[in-house]
């Protein structure tokens, strides 16, 4: 049995892509997801802005192995951030 990684779990990749689109639609910010591997962040899903700001992204740890990266985190209210993070965590549980 092969070990599963984020990118080999295509169902999860699609789901994270869907979440990124939903966040963009609802809050107007682009996010992408990366696997945390020590100092490395390895792209999994989501998108960068069409109009890139070139500013350093904010990294939000969703779990010890999954990071959400975005340039718009500060634009969100605390409540909105919590909703986003808890929905992602719920989805991760379903795909484990």
């Amino acid at each position, binding site marked *: 049995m092969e070990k599963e990684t984020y*990118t080999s779990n295509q169902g999860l990749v699609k789901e994270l892509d869907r979440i990124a689109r939903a966040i963009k639609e609802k809050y107007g910010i682009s996010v992408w997801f990366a696997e945390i591997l020590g*100092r490395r962040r390895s*792209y999994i899903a989501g998108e960068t802005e069409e109009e890139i700001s*070139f*500013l350093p992204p904010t990294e939000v740890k969703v779990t010890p192995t999954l990071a959400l*990266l975005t340039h718009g985190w500060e634009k969100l209210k605390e409540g909105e951030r919590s909703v986003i993070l808890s929905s992602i965590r719920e989805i991760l549980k379903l795909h484990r």
Partner: protein
Amino acid sequence: MRLELADIETWVKERIKEDEITRYMEGGRDFIDDEEIIEKLDSNRNPDPERIRDIIAKSLSIETLQPDETAALLNVDDPQLWEEIFEAAGKVKKLVYDNRIVTFAPLYCSNYCVNNCLYCGFRKENVKGRRRKLSLEEIKRETEVLAGKIGHKRLIVVYGEHPISDVSYIAESIRTIYNVKVETRKGYGQIRRVNVNAPPFSIDELKLLKEVGIGTYQVFQETYHHETYAYVHPPNTIKHNYQWRLYCMHRALEAGVDDVGIGVLFGLYDWKFEVMGLLYHSRELEKRFGVGPHTISFPRLQPAANTPFIQKAKYKVSDEDFKKLIAVIRLSVPYTGMILTAREPQELRREVIPLGITQTDASTRIGIGAYSEEYTRQEAERQQFLLGDTRSLDEVIRELCKMGYITSFCTAGYRCGRTGKQIMKLLRTGKERWFCKLNAILTFREWLDDFASEETKKEGERLIEKEMDEVKRELPRVYPVLLKYYTRIENGERDLYF
């Protein structure tokens, strides 16, 4: 650990996993069709200059070329048209990566090998070669020199194929390197990205390497020509299996290692055929995974101890053809990183860098343990081949400055998820080059403060000033953030990036 011959033989027999080859093949064939390549090269002879200019225009829009288009470029005879190709190659590089050159150093960890490649000083039948595998303590010492004295931030670690340097040893050695942190003049030195040049692995082994945070996984096909491949990699060796090697990047991408590097050892077969092979390989990866090669390498055969094959090789590539192949690769796969190594002599390196090179090594030592033991001359018996350029990083950087290139120690993409499909999109749209510029300025400032000689520092600061002006003009919203980061770095903070 001492291994008996029987253990080694068993290990060799169990290396290749057929199902991890055949799952990618179509109709029982691999994606390199030698006859098709030869036909493309034949049918695109004497290309019309206008067609060549159209192809150049396509490259400038950062589109991967079709095989017929690359074949047409390779068939250009007119020296004037070659000048246009050279110029365009430089432009493509600037569009995608700006004027930065990334530097790195190779770190040879073990030269034990079960293969017997005719061109290689590490082949098992070369009894004159001195064999050695670095302990983790020795790797730590090598890294302390590389990160703490020379100032490298990126390494390519190199291993022969042998059970004593198997994937567990490789993973441990990478962990060891990442853990080294050395105090410097103003800050600290650390290796931030470890790329790996190693044998083909299975998917599960590649997942292990991904877990320890490897950068690029680099495996060269050496030659794409099937018959030549079978000849130079003798039967009853792992490396004799063309497809096991050819599909290792498929396995890597499937394992989630999202930056892969391909390459050819030029001089084993006709260079035009090999450039076509690299193009087919790139297109295959793009088609299957949406991600092409992160880098392409194009080493040429160099003399190696007790390796007569090299002297007799029929397809050695001249300097003139070497320039052509670099320019054609640059135009054919416009988004890819291109690595020029210290195999090549100083004068030639200076000439080919403007043709689209993005990465190069310096202060290079390829003997096992050669950085910490600090031997000053090359020793053929403990090297895979002989180097053409042994200048220090400081000297190379100073020369690059004078040529208008900023040296970058950037590892930012790898640190914030700009990898794989993500970086492909940024490269193809010409947006990545701004990240390259911003991060080059920051990392170059770090290096100047921590490691540069006074002379190099002066040259470097002059260049940084020019680069900062460009950012101020072109990215006015970003400039204040850059300035803030820059000041923090001047004050001793390290590892800030965009």
